[in-house]
């Protein structure tokens, strides 16, 4: 048993292909170095050193339990109370994975949207405005303006502009998810992390969400975990393939899907396992 695993691990170690980015138009904004994540004693992620290009969409794909969500949630320290994360997370030259970092401030730069839409039990307007008010943005006019731009960027404005005072819990799944995106971008983050944002949505809503993301990359760097390989292929510039807690392959999306360097990646993207 042990021998088998060691052999497998050794083989997996050898067969890796992770590129370094060098696109001057889209400099690296976020990168991880020697990142390890432990749940208790169990190591869930042990090989995840990636670089993310600004104003691009990067997709993280891989089978269930491959560590991609664990990795994503570590990036804005959402795992702080759940897991132990060691290593460096460099954001604009600063290691944000150190105790002295103000995580609350950091999360306003690195926003997150979750798998299940989680609008708050407040009006649509307040879902977006209340976090701004807490940060000292007052003034009705200013708030109105931010709410409107955020909802427009999330492609939700036209559907809800007359119902801003209605409860957000009455929205459909797709609308609720776009409200969550609007809420996240209202505080003007640099980076937007999305953890399978479309997995609870129907195909039409998914399509709309993808269009929204494509239009958002002009302003934000987007990192998205997805189970849906077509989705990754449709919207992302770069793709990282996770397997058994490590990144096996990282390259441009076209490379990953048309000519993967690693056999396991090839098997996964062609649907042979996962």
């Amino acid at each position, binding site marked *: 048993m042990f021998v088998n695993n060691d052999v497998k691990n050794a083989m997996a170690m050898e067969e890796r292909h992770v590129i370094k980015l060098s696109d001057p138009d889209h400099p690296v904004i976020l990168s991880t170095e020697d990142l390890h994540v432990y749940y208790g004693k169990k190591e869930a992620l042990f090989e995840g050193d990636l670089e993310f290009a600004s104003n691009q969409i990067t997709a993280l794909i891989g089978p269930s339990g491959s560590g991609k969500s664990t990795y994503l949630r570590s990036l804005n320290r959402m795992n702080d109370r759940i897991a132990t994360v060691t290593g460096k997370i460099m954001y604009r030259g600063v290691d944000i994975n150190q105790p002295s970092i103000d995580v609350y401030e*950091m999360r306003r730069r690195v926003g997150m*949207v979750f798998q299940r839409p989680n609008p708050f039990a407040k009006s649509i307007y307040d879902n977006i405005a209340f976090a701004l008010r807490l940060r000292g943005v007052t003034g009705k006019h200013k708030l109105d303006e931010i709410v409107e731009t955020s909802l427009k960027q999330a492609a939700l404005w036209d559907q809800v502009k007359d119902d801003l005072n209605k409860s957000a819990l009455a929205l459909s799944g797709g609308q609720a998810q776009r409200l969550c995106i609007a809420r*996240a971008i209202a505080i003007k983050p640099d980076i937007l992390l999305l953890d399978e944002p479309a997995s609870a949505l129907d195909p039409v809503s998914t399509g709309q969400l993808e269009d929204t993301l494509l239009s958002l990359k002009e302003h934000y760097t987007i990192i998205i975990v997805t189970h849906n390989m077509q989705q990754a292929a449709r919207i992302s510039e770069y793709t990282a393939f996770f397997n058994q807690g490590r990144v096996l392959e990282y390259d441009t999306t076209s490379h990953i899907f048309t000519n993967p360097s690693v056999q396991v990646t090839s098997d996964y993207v062609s649907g042979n396992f996962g």
Partner: protein
Amino acid sequence: MNSKTQNKIAIGGLYGIAGLVVLILLALLGYILVSGVPQLSWHFLTAPGKAFLKGGGVGIQLYNSFYLLILAMLISFPIALGAAIYLYEYAKDNWVTTTIRTAIEILSSLPSVVVGLFGFLFFVVKLHLGFSILSGAFALTFFNLPLLTRSIEDSLRTISDVQREGGLALGLSRWETVTRVILPAAVPSILTGVILSAGRVFGEAAALIYTAGQSAPALDFTDWNPFNISSPLNPMRPAETLAVHIWKINSEGIMPDAKAISSGSSAVLVIAILLFNFAARYLGKRLYKRLTSA
């Protein structure tokens, strides 16, 4: 016996048990209401009691019950809220929280007469508070705290963790997430819990006999200076409540219409508690609706 007949027998048995419970409850309620409601009148509800003559009311006792309830809630709610927030939102599962939870559990199953005797020794005697509303309110706090804490903790538990993550992901601190996201969403169910526990406190007698006392001195409802002994607001005066009144009349009442007064008081008590329960349901539902739909 095949499984179909078995199932039928089981269902029949369960229906029977449920029916029996409902029947006992209705009989009890019916008896109290039928014997009590005819005694009710405006005079009965507002007049002070008479010790030896017939025709006394329960006005003071009724007022005392409400005043004591409000004081007890004012003391216990903030503590219970804080404890519940700490236990559910902050504390990690370790031996400290396990100990606290066990303590709460034991405290909640403490017989109320024990709470009353503890209150007598500690608040009335040791702290020299005497037989007073304040002693009673503290005793009721002890009696109420464990259940209220648990009910608020349960309310917090009903709010999904994705809401907490949502708050944190917007850069809110844990405290901001709790106060701005979780508590507002939990208000309907917290309110329901508070009102239900209010009903329990309202009907409590044993914890009050030796703390708030068994006498209801006359009150002057025009005097609202809490430092005057006859003021309704004075927390240092002895204050027999409705529930204690019922117990007392039945054990040592010497007025000629003791039975009628006891029946009437019981009816008032039961009706008040029923009203608390209906109010809890109504307000909880309404608030939930307001929060979740347009």
